[in-house]
């Protein structure tokens, strides 16, 4: 700034040394939030609480749901029939007015999820989406060339296996129920949950036993 020629022996408001100036949308968010709070429509504590809820969600919740479905066929049937209700059975609430649909991967069918319009994601069961999920390249390409995109994730879908791409463009959210890996028969439900990753529940990879695990045994 050419007109800013005084010595910097003081702090300017909002320009802490390590912090960039807030951008347009950050300022918009602050303004709307402060107006809503001043108008008495929301309280600061409600706002804080909602952030706390958002931050409390992680792929561990989805992994718990998947592991239960693997060990309990009746639960799996309920999960595939009504994802939201089955998650709520395990204490995972859908706090954001969306409904969950669960698609099962099998020997004949592989499912993968995208939101081509923005970044809709099953946050109640997986937490915040990874950056690549919001990336325009992923969103534009996976609907059109899913096999090529999955291969770039290291996931080769054999010829003859059908691929269903689910565009999460409106009110539903999608969780993929991955295949239980061969050799995991003796694992406990908690050990199984430990194998299930975020990416497998989006459908860009499969669930694998840890490298070096002895098939069928505990490692």
């Amino acid at each position, binding site marked *: 700034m050419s007109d800013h020629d005084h010595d910097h022996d003081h702090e300017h408001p909002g320009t802490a040394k390590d912090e960039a100036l807030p951008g347009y949308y950050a300022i918009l968010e602050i303004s709307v939030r402060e107006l809503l709070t001043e108008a008495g429509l929301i309280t600061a504590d409600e706002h804080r609480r909602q952030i706390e809820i958002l931050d409390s969600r992680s792929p561990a919740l989805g992994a718990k749901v998947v592991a239960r479905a693997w060990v309990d066929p009746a639960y799996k049937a309920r999960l595939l029939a009504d994802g939201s209700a089955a998650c709520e059975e395990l204490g995972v609430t859908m706090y954001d007015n969306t409904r969950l649909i669960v698609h099962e991967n099998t020997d004949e069918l592989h499912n993968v999820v995208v939101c*081509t319009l923005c970044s809709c994601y099953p946050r109640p069961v997986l937490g915040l989406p990874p950056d690549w999920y919001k990336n325009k390249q992923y969103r534009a390409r996976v609907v059109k060339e*899913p096999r090529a995109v999955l291969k770039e994730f290291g996931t080769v879908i054999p010829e003859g296996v059908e691929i*269903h*791409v689910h565009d999460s463009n409106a*009110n*539903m959210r999608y969780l993929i129920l991955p295949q239980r890996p061969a050799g995991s028969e003796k694992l406990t439900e908690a050990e199984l949950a430990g194998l299930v990753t975020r990416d497998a529940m989006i459908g860009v990879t499969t669930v694998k036993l840890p490298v070096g695990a002895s098939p069928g045994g505990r490692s």
Partner: protein
Amino acid sequence: MAAATQASRPAFRVGDRIRISDRTPVGHYRTPMYVRGKTGHIERVLDLFLDPEAEGYGRNEGAEIRLYRVRFKQRDLWPDYTGGPEDELQIEMYEPWLERA
């Protein structure tokens, strides 16, 4: 009340052959370009949800419309699709975007 009852009755059933309207309204909508004018089938009938085209302008009262899931063969979406003939894309679609085909 009568209008609400009318709106709550789905106009399409699972398996119905449909085409997505090929129009370009001004405003907020959740119908990606790549499915417009394409032909598919109703995969499942969902509940009533707020019409995003009304909600985008703050009009929420009485603006609930039927939502569906629609399935397309990938080859019907992309002429140069190289995957299997049975590969599908499934997407949610609001009733005003559906036409019988």
